């Protein structure tokens, strides 16, 4: 037996182990705790990479927990899978890989960023719990476990957003986040209950095989869709996001970006894999498209007028999620029509998938750069900043890479995914591309505002003693900057190896469903 067969289980076990052991490492002092933080973060990145390679070479991986054998999905002649089952296809593996990179960058950054604060053993434990929940959402093969992992990541996130509990704003942001997240998670649970009551299964592949387009299924889809759209920050359910992202410590916000992408993953898994071609109405794709356009435009419009750097970048998160919703919405609209898929649907999906990885990398870097500015100056308000380019040249250079990428300036990666989205959505209706392009212009305008306000201008006396941030913080930012540069310089490789397999997996409903039932046949021999 190859140990890599157990990668899906290890991916959850290692961060969970890291979380529960974190308080104990504190006994060995700051050095041991930080070493543990970095070691576990690096280990999960390696595991995520190996899982991505494995799925890329041998197709979807099914892993059964608590059964007779790890690959026996249907024991003793059962017709439906009842065990805790994980299923990793190219889309899941892609999400896991980029989430692990964001989590690693956040961890490296936090080692220095959080040095001034006490309670770090709790911070590390919550951080790894959040990562466990995020990975769980991305690799689980059944809906009930999806709900459980959603709750794990959410509850850990509430604690991390409220980590600076001496700040009233942080507590308020965590409370609001908790309120809307809990409501959303409850709706996910109700949707799962609807499907379970109808089909007696919670396994995603089994549901995808038998689902029909009736009243119960429609209700469940509405509940899934709105709850997960709210969790990933879609307008007009986005208002928790600027509060939570701006108040959480910067390393956490970097990982929270990936956590919100896990909800987006859930939304697309439901729409494409479970309902997919059974969805007998264009209403849902159009709702996703409209939510995408609203998110893009409202998010960026609010960002332009912000003065607090964290809130400005957080509103951009709302706007960038809109691009992904638009791309996937158009892809979903084309699904079931081979000509539409070939003409524009697959291009839109590729754009959406590419934008997920681009967004996670540059948005993570932007939040870390905002954290670096706060660390160096103690300021969050752009009105109080100025002339910091001379004092923080490395931070400025890293910020510039992320800002140019998100604004879609050539030759950075941000434009590649946007180009795919512009061109494919134009085929559905030109107004969609117009909104996407106006959003891009306003994105550039708001990052010019940050750059001018924080880094340019005359040197301020109050910042005479400001020094460049510590190496670990620069290291965390550099991880993401290198990823951005790689995606920018090798867009074809990124599309062929990262993006296309993930986009194809989303369209290939039969392969996801077939993997579970095929593993029943092969696993029986073990």
């Amino acid at each position, binding site marked *: 037996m190859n140990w890599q067969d157990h990668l899906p289980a290890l991916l959850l076990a290692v961060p969970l182990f890291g979380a529960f052991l974190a308080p104990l490492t504190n006994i060995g002092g700051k050095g041991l705790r930080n070493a543990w933080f970095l070691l576990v973060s690096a280990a999960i990145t390696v595991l995520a990479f190996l899982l991505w390679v494995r799925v890329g070479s041998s197709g979807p991986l099914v892993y059964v927990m608590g059964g007779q054998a790890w690959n026996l999905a249907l024991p003793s002649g059962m017709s439906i899978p009842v065990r805790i089952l994980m299923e990793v296809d190219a889309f899941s593996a892609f999400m896991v890989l980029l989430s692990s990179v964001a989590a690693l960058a956040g961890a490296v950054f936090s080692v220095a960023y959080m040095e001034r604060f006490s309670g770090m053993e709790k911070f590390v434990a919550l951080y790894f719990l959040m990562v466990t929940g995020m990975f769980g959402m991305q690799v689980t093969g059944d809906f009930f476990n999806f709900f459980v992992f959603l709750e794990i990541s959410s509850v850990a996130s509430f604690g991390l957003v409220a980590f600076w509990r001496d700040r009233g704003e942080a507590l308020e942001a965590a*409370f*609001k986040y908790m*309120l*809307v997240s809990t*409501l*959303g998670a409850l*709706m996910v649970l109700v949707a799962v209950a609807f499907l379970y009551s109808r089909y007696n299964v919670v396994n995603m592949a089994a549901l995808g095989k038998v689902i029909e387009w009736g009243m119960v299924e429609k*209700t469940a*889809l*509405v*509940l899934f*869709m*709105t709850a997960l*759209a*709210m969790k990933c920050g879609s307008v*007009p*359910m986005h*208002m928790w996001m600027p*509060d939570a992202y701006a108040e959480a410590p910067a390393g956490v916000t970097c990982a929270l970006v990936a956590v919100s992408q896990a909800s987006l993953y859930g939304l697309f898994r439901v729409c494409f894999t479970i309902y997919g071609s059974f969805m007998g*109405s264009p*209403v849902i794709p159009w*709702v996703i498209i409209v939510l995408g356009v609203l998110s893009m435009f*409202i998010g960026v*419009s*609010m960002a*332009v*007028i912000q*003065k607090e750097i964290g809130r400005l970048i957080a509103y951009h998160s709302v706007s960038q999620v809109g691009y992904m919703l638009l791309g996937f919405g158009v892809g979903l609209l084309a699904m079931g029509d081979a000509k539409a898929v070939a*003409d*524009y649907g697959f*291009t839109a999906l590729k754009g959406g998938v590419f934008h997920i990885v681009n967004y996670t990398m540059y948005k993570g870097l932007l939040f870390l750069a905002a954290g670096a500015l706060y660390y160096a100056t103690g300021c969050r308000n*752009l*009105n109080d900043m*100025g*002339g910091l380019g001379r004092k923080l040249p490395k931070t400025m250079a890293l910020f510039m890479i992320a800002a140019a990428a998100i604004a879609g300036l*050539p*030759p950075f990666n941000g434009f*590649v995914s946007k*180009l*795919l989205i512009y*061109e*494919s959505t*134009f085929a559905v209706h030109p107004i969609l591309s117009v909104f996407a392009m106006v959003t891009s212009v306003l994105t550039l305008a708001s990052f010019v*505002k*940050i750059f*001018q*306000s924080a880094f340019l*201008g*005359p*040197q*301020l*006396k*109050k910042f005479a003693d400001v020094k460049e941030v510590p190496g670990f913080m620069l290291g965390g930012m550099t991880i993401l900057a290198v990823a951005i540069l790689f995606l*920018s*310089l*090798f*867009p*074809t*490789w990124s*599309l062929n190896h990262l993006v296309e397999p993930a986009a194809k997996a989303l369209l290939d409903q039969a392969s996801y469903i077939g993997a579970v039932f095929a593993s029943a046949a092969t696993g029986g021999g073990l």
Partner: protein
Amino acid sequence: MWSKVLTGFGYWDVYAWLSFFLVGGGMVCLIRSLGRTDYKEGTDQDEIFFGSNPVPEDGEDLKVPASSAYWGYTQALKPFYEGLVGLHTGMATDYVGWYILVTALVALLVLV
């Protein structure tokens, strides 16, 4: 072909862009090299021109604050922004209200 992305409608070539910036950078350097060479650091030539007024010592008195950025844009769109900002009340009950409203609307569209 590591650099070219075909979109089905057009293409994106990162190395074409890099070549463009390289040529542009070369032209900037060329133009700069044609400039005057008699500039002397530390003399009057080095002074900041501040509308013939004395230059304030602290940069705080010189800088343009972030809230002044895009003043014309926000003024021109004042009604839009008043409405938009008004919707962002910061109240937790409103956050839940928006969620319920969207769920109800989508349910209406899908179920009816």
